[in-house]
């Protein structure tokens, strides 16, 4: 049977240990068919001044120094402990972790969306919303302020929600399918050139402008 998990099914899965969302600080986090997720304690923000544009070629493994430098200098990391706040300006994008540690079984897929109350304030939570079956770790939220005034955020706020869907068949799961963000403890930049080097190199050879 496939479809979205109801509150009762989510609780059943949590009780069996099959599904992990830890911790759930309050019963209000368990919605009719979703679990609310709280903001964690790190914010990773792109350094606007350090790059002219996002360039997949900068991630190519050929130039180890440049690739490493691009990775290291791409983001500014802010520790935002409980009690502190982070101001998200209009048009800005910031990566934050969830407070919760999540582990999905092989027959569940997760979808992360904004809580509607925050969306109405202009806060967009995630564009890459799918959580693969078998994933474990924090979930990285891609927060963007679509409104016209800055939004003050603080760790512990319920800003996102996780809906869960059963798959028709369990995913066959091995290390190669784990994805580059499996077992994440905090947000980090991805590798946009990963496994696509052939196209980027072809563009370079053609003398891209």
């Amino acid at each position, binding site marked *: 049977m496939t479809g979205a998990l109801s509150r009762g099914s989510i609780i*059943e899965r949590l009780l069996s240990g099959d599904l992990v969302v830890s911790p759930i600080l309050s019963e209000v986090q*368990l919605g009719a068919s979703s679990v609310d997720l709280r903001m964690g304690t790190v914010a990773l923000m792109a350094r606007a001044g350090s790059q002219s544009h996002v360039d997949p070629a900068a991630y190519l493994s050929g130039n180890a120094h440049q690739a490493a430098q691009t990775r290291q200098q791409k983001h500014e990391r802010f*520790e935002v*402990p409980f009690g502190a706040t982070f101001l998200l300006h209009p048009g800005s994008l910031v990566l934050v972790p969830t407070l919760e540690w999540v582990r999905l079984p092989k027959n569940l897929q997760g979808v992360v969306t904004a809580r509607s109350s925050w969306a109405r304030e202009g806060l967009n939570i995630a564009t890459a919303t799918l959580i693969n079956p078998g994933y474990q770790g*924090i979930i990285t939220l891609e927060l963007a302020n679509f409104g016209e005034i800055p939004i003050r955020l603080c760790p512990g706020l319920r800003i996102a929600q996780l809906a869960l869907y059963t798959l028709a068949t369990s995913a066959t799961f091995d290390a190669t399918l784990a994805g580059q963000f499996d*077992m994440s403890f905090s947000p980090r930049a991805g590798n946009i050139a990963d496994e696509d080097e052939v196209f980027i190199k072809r563009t370079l050879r053609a003398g891209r402008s």
Partner: protein
Amino acid sequence: MNARDFLKQEHDNVKQLLEQSLRYEYGFEGSQEFFEECGTRLSFISQWLGSPDELVADDLANIGYQLNELSKLICRIERSSLGEYSWPFVEELKKLATGICTEDGLEGQYPPKIYVLAGGGLDAYRIYPEMRRPMASRRRLLTIVFPKTLKHFVLLHPILGHEIGHALWGCTKQQAHLVGKVLSVLKRLGGKFESEDVTAVHLFDSQAPHDAQAALAALANLRVDEANFFGQWARWEFWLDEILCDLVGLATFGPSFAAAQCGLLSTLDPAGVTTGRMHPPVGWRINLVLRAAELLNLSEPPPDPHPLRQSFLAFWDELQRFRRPEPWFNVFDDNQIVDALDGIFQLLNQYPPSGYPKTDFDALGELVQQLANGVPPIGFHMSEGGAPVCSRVDFRHIVYAGWISRHSLQPHSFDITNRLCEHAIMQQIAIDTAMSQP
């Protein structure tokens, strides 16, 4: 330029240095408190230097000392600015250090100001207490240093319990207690630390293991022998301080301190026989801490059967492998160890949560089980009725669970275990915050 003018110039230089230090971000709490404290001290110095009265040599020396210390501290902080470190662990560590290092002053109590740095090398773990407060109305600065490479390795961070001992020793208020109730016990008549001479006799004992004798023989090239060992080479009082601080570490962090100490010290000095100028042989310290842990009943296993029992026993068995069997490594008798620990706990118990809280095996077992499942170990579970249930867990038990889980059937790598425990300490702070709401 006379001394007063030179100090005025140096005051301006230090002030500029302080302002320049704001070019960087310093961890999650920023540097505001530290900046303001240094700024206040500099304005005192400025007033002092600007007073119409003549300044005597003592005044000038005092001002020079204070400027020097501020300058060194600001430079060290700027060199080791951190963007990322294990702040959840630091937040808990601060709770331990703040109570016991709070001092009385003119207008009440003065808790220390704590600042975190990163250093290079495995031996970078330090807590630098300011040796003297600049004046009775100022707070003491404590700087905590973590090895940069081990920033997320919370299982090793309990080694800072030893450094809490040094910070305690730096507190005028606590020193008298430590001298009367702990050092006096360690120096008890008939013991191997009765005096410098007695310790030297034991150190150079012909029954000492060969590797220890070889290490001491190497010192003969420096014309160091039994007669002048503690005058020319090592400082006996500092050796005693180190031993006292090891016991404070065990009393604050419990088994995790013993595990971190055995692991780190044995890595830095695998044979455990090197005699440092300030440190007694590592083997003496390890044997002392392991025996002290036994005398505190920390190694007493859960009843049989208990799901935790096997990995618990394996954890303590592994620690025992660090113990050197030769009697030369045992420098205190059980009565001394028990009495010294009593003295330390008398002090720590006045400042909860400084003393290590005893473990509930069931709760510890649940934490270990969570780790085995690849989940950060915290006080959270779902009740049978399907409601989320949160509970308080001391961060030292999270770390202890991390150590024990290393001996479960399918342990995670040391790195992952540390990251899970670090994450758990952060999550537990959220749980405690949520539970503190009325």
